[in-house]
């Protein structure tokens, strides 16, 4: 009996629609095989019905496919051009970086965009050396110095980013004079004087023997020395032809805050 059951199963799995007589006779005595045969018949009927079901026509026009093809080809074109360009760009960038790393900076004349920070780094700094820069601190924590006739300030609570400084700071070189203002002279007074007349700045004598910015010796002994130079707000540039320095006007604060005698300063250097 089991042999006939297996044989029927094999027949059904092969998808036949008619059974041999021996198997047909077996169906009458085996309920399991009878159920399998009924299911197979129902399956065949369902298949027949599904095959006879009309499939709707595809009305997708060629023009739509063609348009999509063209659009996708166009969208891929920049990428195809970009890939080799990116490769070449990367190669050039790497070559430039390697070349820049190999060039000795000291052998080149200082460029116009070199910062106070770079100028300061060119000479070793001695911590707590008050002889290089005499400074004074006002009530707001601002330490004022003078260099090349320009009021400079040391502002300890908000030392600006060196990158910002590098963009905003003209090169002064090794010849900036740092003069401490009088301890009892408010810094605002010096600014007011500079704002009234910026022309003498260019004629101010330069002592090239002195360091640009000395390490300030203010605050606690453990405090790391740093220097921040700042310019007064001015709507026009200041050109120091002797030192080859040009101070560009820098916006800082709101226009309403620019007034004579205000303590607004533009920070141009920090180390």
């Amino acid at each position: 009996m089991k042999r006939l059951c297996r044989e029927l199963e094999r027949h059904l799995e092969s998808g036949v629609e008619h059974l041999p007589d021996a198997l047909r006779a077996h169906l009458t005595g085996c309920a399991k095989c009878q159920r399998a045969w009924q299911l197979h018949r129902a399956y065949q009927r369902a298949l027949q019905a599904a095959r006879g079901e009309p499939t709707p026509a595809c009305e997708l026009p060629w023009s739509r496919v063609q348009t999509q093809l063209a659009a996708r080809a166009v969208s891929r074109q920049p990428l195809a051009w970009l890939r080799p360009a990116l490769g070449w760009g990367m190669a050039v960038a790497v070559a430039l970086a390697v070349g820049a790393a190999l060039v000795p900076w000291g052998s080149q004349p200082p460029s116009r965009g070199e910062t106070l920070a770079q100028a300061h780094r060119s000479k070793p700094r001695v911590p707590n050396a008050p002889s290089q820069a005499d400074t004074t601190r006002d009530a707001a924590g601002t330490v004022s110095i003078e260099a090349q006739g320009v009021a400079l300030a040391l502002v300890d609570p908000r030392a600006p980013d060196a990158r910002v400084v590098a963009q905003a700071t003209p090169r002064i070189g090794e010849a900036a004079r740092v003069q401490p203002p009088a301890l009892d002279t408010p810094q605002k007074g010096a600014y007011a004087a500079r704002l009234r007349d910026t022309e003498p700045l260019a004629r101010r004598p330069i002592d090239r023997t002195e360091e640009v910015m000395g390490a300030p010796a203010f605050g606690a002994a453990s405090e790391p020395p740093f220097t921040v130079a700042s310019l007064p707000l001015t709507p026009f540039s200041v050109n120091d032809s002797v030192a080859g320095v040009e101070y560009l006007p820098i916006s800082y604060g709101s226009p309403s805050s620019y007034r004579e005698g205000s303590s607004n300063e533009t920070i141009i250097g920090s180390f």
Partner: protein
Amino acid sequence: MERALAMDNLYAGAGDRTLTDEQLAAKAREGDAAAMEELYLRYRQPVFRIVYRSTRNIDEAEDIVQDVFLKAFERLHTFREQSRFSTWLMRIALNLCTDRARMRQRRQELLEREADHKLAWCHPDAPDPIQTTQQNAFHEAFYTALNQLPDHHRQLIILRDLEEMDYETIAQILGTSVGAVKLRVMRARRAFKAKLEPLLRAIGELE
């Protein structure tokens, strides 16, 4: 496939009808738009029929057909002439159907999860109760069971039992041997019957 091709001869061909599929594919690879159009018109309806069997939705089937031809024409350079163009195209169609079915299933799961089964009555795949006659119930039971199958089983039922393709063509489409296809078809039918039986009993088609 031959049957499928024979049924699709009512089109206005744009290219040379005397060329074989592979010759047209070679011309299309070089950018010949007329050859592309000819291939499209030859295989649009056969591809659509197989896709429609799987999706049961005309709009979705047309979207898939478009994707099939876009993919095929963009990747014509990968078509090896060891196989026929028609089987290569059908393989792309089946793969896209599988992708779309997975997306649909994921979307359905999300819907059910969000609605906590409260929106089952408005599910797009749910049969319209007004149109559910006895004949429709038989039909619906068949396609419900078909959609419950895993993709690889459903594809075999469609190719072999609905489209009546020969085992050799199916083996070429699936990239396997004829013996393996026969074995898989047998398993797919067994799985399909297991899904179909309770549905047919529920509508009184089986005692």
